[in-house]
């Protein structure tokens, strides 16, 4: 991991991202007040708002050729981007949870301490898991095409799921049904205690994350980056 790259990613702000984050916080207030619950799953939104184009923008802006003229390995670059998005999204999710819990206290609906602890850990898992998927998708398309790609995968998965509903293809159905799990690892654990998550699910989570990262490094290694390209 390269701390300079992580820090550079932290400083990548844009008014659209800030506006979207404000919208998430404002709509979150109404959701929390109506449903009397705060979910760590909001972390996935923060990942996509903060991290869209995390690698794709570097590709489209021609930064990579300059970057890799220095002694930086591509794997190091991918890990730094993953870490940056994961850390930023986790910090924002923790802030969101803290604000949400304050609202619940104000409404005389205090959450249980165990639930709060679980949510903090889940926020980390969801943010770093989703960041891994985002980083891989970002290596595939330039700009913020990763965002479009994610929506396209979800839409295609849903359509295919309806299409194969009448067929007896259990493996295909399992895969289509779990697309959300692959894109947002850890998301399904929101209403569970950490002790209720099975060993299989833990292994599955870490497997999905390492697969995304390996694929992301593999994709970066395949890119031909020269000054002539940019």
């Amino acid at each position: 991991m390269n701390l300079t790259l992580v820090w550079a990613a932290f400083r990548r702000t844009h008014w659209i991202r800030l506006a979207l984050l404000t919208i998430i916080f404002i709509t979150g207030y109404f959701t929390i007040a109506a449903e009397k619950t705060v979910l760590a799953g909001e972390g996935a939104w923060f990942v996509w708002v903060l991290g869209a184009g995390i690698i794709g923008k570097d590709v489209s802006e021609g930064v990579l050729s300059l970057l890799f003229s220095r002694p930086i390995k591509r794997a190091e670059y991918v890990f730094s981007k993953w870490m940056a998005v994961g850390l930023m999204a986790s910090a924002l999710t923790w802030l969101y949870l803290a604000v949400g819990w304050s609202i619940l206290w104000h409404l005389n609906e205090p959450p249980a301490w165990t639930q709060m602890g679980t949510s903090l850990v889940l926020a980390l898992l969801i943010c770093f898991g989703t960041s891994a998927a985002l980083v891989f998708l970002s290596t595939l398309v330039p700009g913020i095409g990763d965002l479009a790609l994610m929506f396209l995968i979800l839409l295609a998965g849903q359509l295919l799921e309806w299409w194969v509903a009448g067929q007896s293809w259990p493996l295909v159905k399992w895969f289509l049904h779990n697309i959300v799990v692959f894109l947002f690892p850890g998301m399904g654990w929101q209403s569970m205690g950490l002790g209720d998550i099975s060993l299989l699910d833990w292994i599955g989570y870490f497997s999905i994350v390492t697969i995304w990262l390996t694929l992301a490094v593999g994709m970066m290694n395949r890119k031909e980056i020269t000054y002539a390209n940019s």
Partner: protein
Amino acid sequence: MRILNSDPHSSKEMPSWLMGLTFLLFLAWVGSAIYNNAHPAPAAAQDLVRWQTFSDADNQWKRGTKPILYDFSAAWCGPCQQMKKDVFGDQKTADWINQSFIPVSALDRQQEDGKNSPEVEALQKQYDIQAFPTLVVKFPNGSFKTQVGYDSQEKTIQFLQEQLADLKPGSASASTP
């Protein structure tokens, strides 16, 4: 860190530890999934609710004394198992549900069997079930209320109590678990 690349000046590398870790985790994931499939664990929570068959429930409901409580869930759904443990596995709550509702389990088998029973399919369509778990309380007058998802035992009991409070006095048990 050993690098799978012969050119020391190249930025291209695939860390061998990442490859190894990914391979091992994937192998463990597939292996444990196969093992779990071959040796299903005993039900984590004992379900103490006396679930009725669809036809029995319909016959009882027509008498107009109790509402039907449909539990739309799936075996793969974590929150459903949590609700089963907290709500349907709790003796006091289960007794209260048995006394106050006509409980019916509409278990989704789409993922395991590729299709659902016609009754479950029809009920899912009738109540527009989009997520699991979903609880549907069908009142004697035919109207219904739903709770989508599972938050906690307290909130689920509160939802069920609110539905009973909407019934005419004496038509169902007004006691609480």
